[in-house]
């Protein structure tokens, strides 16, 4: 099963507590597609998420942990998650503090495998 961008993002944003989701070009941090709540600056978040993912990838590879499959930034007031998708795309989600991270992680991994 493959998913177009919009449908892929909808599957993420319908999870309770998710404030937005986006597909980002991992190399340059540009937005490929987004579904964000008002007030979230998509372009800036995309750039920072891609940069963070790149940095953490270097750390994981240096430690011998291999290529990252999932990234999770947990903050006091919310959370940011990222999962690599095919073709160098990064699936990024922003959630509230109380979002179910386990559920969101599973859904993001499923969507990342199916997105085209």
């Amino acid at each position, binding site marked *: 099963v493959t998913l177009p961008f919009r449908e892929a993002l909808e599957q993420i944003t319908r999870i309770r507590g998710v404030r937005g989701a986006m597909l980002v070009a991992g190399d340059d941090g540009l937005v490929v597609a987004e579904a964000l709540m008002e007030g979230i600056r998509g372009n800036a978040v995309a750039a920072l*998420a891609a940069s*963070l993912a790149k940095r953490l990838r270097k750390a994981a590879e240096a*430690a*011998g942990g*291999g290529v990252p499959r999932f990234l*999770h930034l947990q903050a006091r*007031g*919310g959370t940011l998650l990222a999962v690599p998708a095919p073709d160098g795309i990064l699936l990024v989600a922003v959630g509230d503090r109380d979002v179910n991270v386990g559920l969101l992680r599973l859904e993001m991994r499923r969507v990342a495998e199916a997105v085209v």
Partner: protein
Amino acid sequence: MADDIKAMTAELARDPGSLVFLKLGEALRARGQIEAATRIAASGVVRHPELAPAHDLYARVLVDQGDFERAYHEWTVALELEPRHFGAHKGLGFLCYRWGDLDGAIEHLELALAADPTDATVVQALQRVREGVDLAAVALPLAPAAAPAGVASPWDALEGGGHDVLLADRRGLLLAGSVCDREGRNVGEELAAEIAVAAQEADRTARLLDLGEWRSLLVEGETMNLLVSRPTGQTVLLLARDRAVPQGRLAVLAERAAGIARAWLQAGRT
């Protein structure tokens, strides 16, 4: 048996060709389980005769047992396979010194330093050899790769052991601990620099999204999970554990490691 050793043993049982034996052998050495480390290292050499790190590991467990002649042979084989192998040059430098061959010791230590100019133990050892100081006073190659001399490791009591935990300052300088890659090479300084930058990126991301102060950064890798946290405003902590350790458990361990780091900092880094 510590969880990480259990996990690595299970992984090796599942896949006897896995290179995890290198980390397992080193972890067993670090816990003083020399017999078990010897079995793992010896079978690793049989299974991977063309792999220099396998011979390096075996040489180090042979030194642990006082079998310097065979250790010399294993390190020599490692250099035949990989002429710039850091561990082999370091080990042979130690053996040459032990046998009174100062020129040989200096030559091997210089080659080790050329392979890894950042290794503080080799810098220190080379200086001592040139000054004619007893090399036994320098914990040169006999210490596990995960515990370089001169760098404190306050997490020995942590579940899974004190290895693969490090503390860095916000400038990316290593304060304590170490992390070894799959070849048993200490990559602590490199990781300290990387996670300090990652922490700054996390700061910016959290600020932009109005998420408040960030607490942790989890990286789920193919074989290992990393968790970065901030024990204090000026430091960053990295905990690396095998993927077999559940993520919730990893978070608990990271919290404990952060507590140990705070206590260690308050005690004046002793």
